[in-house]
């Protein structure tokens, strides 16, 4: 009996974020009639799919001990590439952004691993690089694709009343979860993030593992872009501005450690929902947009404090 209780308490301690999320939803539902409508919940889910998919990819990079700050500008760039091609052919509009995503991931991974440079500063460079390319492609203009084709199926279609892109997020999360928890690749990612030197001595090729992580991150940006372009059939060179911070915030408040080695997709999904719930309430109560940024900043710092404290114990 005692043992069962201590296991329960330990489990609860591990799931702080889940409890906070449930508490938020319950409290917000009680205080706000607008919040507890089913329309609002579906809206909330619709809003998180793009950033949710990006955050899943970011989780993988963070677990290997790196950070990818280029995701926002890569999102803008891939969106433009996708819509430009979709104007001619739907298939190209799907395939080429994903192919570009792989190439960009390899580029980031190569720079970070080949020369062992700090991933934050390196991807700050590629953020600037890709956002410049995105602005250059259309000279800063917003572009629109062809509507009324099967291209819109992910973004606008529904299955059993739930938008199709919610399923996409679900599928991406499950695949990434399996990669992390059930495969040799996932185990190696955690080794590399925990202790690169030890992992290398044990025969793990850390450079290759980290490069794969960056490719997965870019690829998930590619998938997020498909959701976005399919829903909006437009793209602008500044669509993705700030997505990198949203993703980092979601990953960190979910409880994945920025130090690497620890974390899970489940935590990130909880982080994404937590962030979305807070922002949803701010929007419902007409708080200015600026408050979102303030809250995100505070959440990032708080999460880092909690993480560092936890690791010291």
């Amino acid at each position, binding site marked *: 009996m005692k043992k069962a209780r201590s296991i329960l308490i330990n489990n609860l301690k591990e799931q702080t974020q889940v409890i906070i999320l449930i508490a938020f939803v319950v409290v917000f539902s009680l205080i706000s009639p607008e919040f507890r409508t089913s329309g609002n919940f579906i809206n909330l889910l619709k809003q998180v799919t793009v950033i949710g998919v990006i955050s899943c990819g970011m989780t993988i990079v963070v677990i290997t001990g790196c950070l990818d700050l280029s995701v926002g500008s890569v999102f803008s760039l891939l969106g433009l590439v996708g819509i430009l091609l979709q104007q001619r052919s739907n298939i190209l509009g799907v395939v080429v952004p994903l192919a570009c995503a792989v190439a960009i991931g390899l580029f980031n991974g190569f720079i970070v691993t080949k*020369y062992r440079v*700090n991933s934050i*500063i390196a991807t700050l460079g590629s*953020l*600037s*690089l890709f956002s410049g390319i995105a602005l250059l492609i259309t000279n800063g203009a917003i572009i629109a694709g062809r509507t009324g084709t099967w291209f819109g199926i992910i973004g606008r279609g529904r299955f059993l009343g739930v938008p199709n892109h919610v399923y996409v997020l679900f599928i991406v999360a499950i695949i990434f979860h399996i990669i992390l928890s059930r495969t040799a690749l996932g185990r190696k990612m955690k080794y590399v993030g925990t202790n690169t030197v030890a992992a290398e001595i044990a025969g793990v090729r850390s450079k290759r593992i980290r490069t794969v992580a960056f490719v997965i991150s870019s690829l998930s940006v590619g998938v997020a872009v498909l959701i976005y372009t399919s829903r909006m059939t437009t793209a602008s060179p500044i669509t993705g501005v700030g997505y990198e*911070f949203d993703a980092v915030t979601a990953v960190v408040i979910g409880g994945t450690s920025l130090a690497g080695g620890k974390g899970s997709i489940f935590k990130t999904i909880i982080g994404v929902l937590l962030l979305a719930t807070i922002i949803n309430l701010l929007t419902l109560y007409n708080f200015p947009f600026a408050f979102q940024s*303030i809250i995100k*900043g505070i959440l990032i710092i708080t999460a880092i404090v909690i993480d560092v*404290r936890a690791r010291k114990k």
Partner: protein
Amino acid sequence: VDRTRIRDIAVEQKILLVILVLGIYLSLRSRYFLTFQNITNIFLAISFEGMIAIGMAILIIVGEIDLSVGSVMAFGSVLAVLFQPYGIAAGVAAGIAGGAAVGLLNGLLVTRLRLPSIAVTLGTMVLMKGVVFALTKEHTITGTNRSFTIISQTELLHIPVPVYVFIVLALLFAMVLNRSTFGRDVYAVGGNATASKLFGIKVERVKTACFSLIGFLSGLAGVMLAGKLNIASGNIGQYSNVFVITAVLLGGISLEGGEGRILMAVEGVLLLGIMNNAMVIMKISPFVQEIIRGLLLIVIIIIDAISIEKKKYR
């Protein structure tokens, strides 16, 4: 014997050589480049982020980094605009004090709670951007005190004040690093924090001072920037962290810490300033300029990483 000395000097002053070569090339290409007006423009353009680069150089030498400088600069300029109805001095003081306060906050978070500076300042960068947007209600705000522009538009010998402020600060902090106990402590802590602690240096205090200093300088840069056109907005300083870090690394200060001089940062800033000026003269699109800046940061950080690696095996 002489030849090796010349080569040593060339290696040591490589940035200066690049500046010289680039300058000669540009003056041949454009008659406008080597005019007094253009050179003044270059210096004026770099003076704001140049002030921040002085702080970033010291912070990188002490072994930390600050990504929030752009948001803090915007914060300083917004405070300067908001407080100028109470007088020019109030505007200036508010901007500088606000910047220094954020710097102090960064420093306390990093040293007291032992958090990684790159992650903390990523957080304060997002946070302060939000604060700035909240203060400006997401608009460009205009100052009401018309005489506020005297702080940046006044010219001595046809050179505007911010240029003097930048140069004086560079000289001042070059001396502080070279001659004072604080400077010695900065190098010691950056070289080996554990050993410095054993020698009785208050590592936390030195680092907090460095963070406060860069906050102070970012706030000051924001104030001077606000004085230029007497406007402020949340879009100020969006890429300042990229610019400043690129400049400092370009000047040859390594992210490893413990080494570097203020002059190097100034040279890096100057080179970037001349490059920006050249890109404008050559009518390169601002979008391409952004691409070039991104690539430059990537190349510089790779060169830095290679030289750190080399040092290890020597």
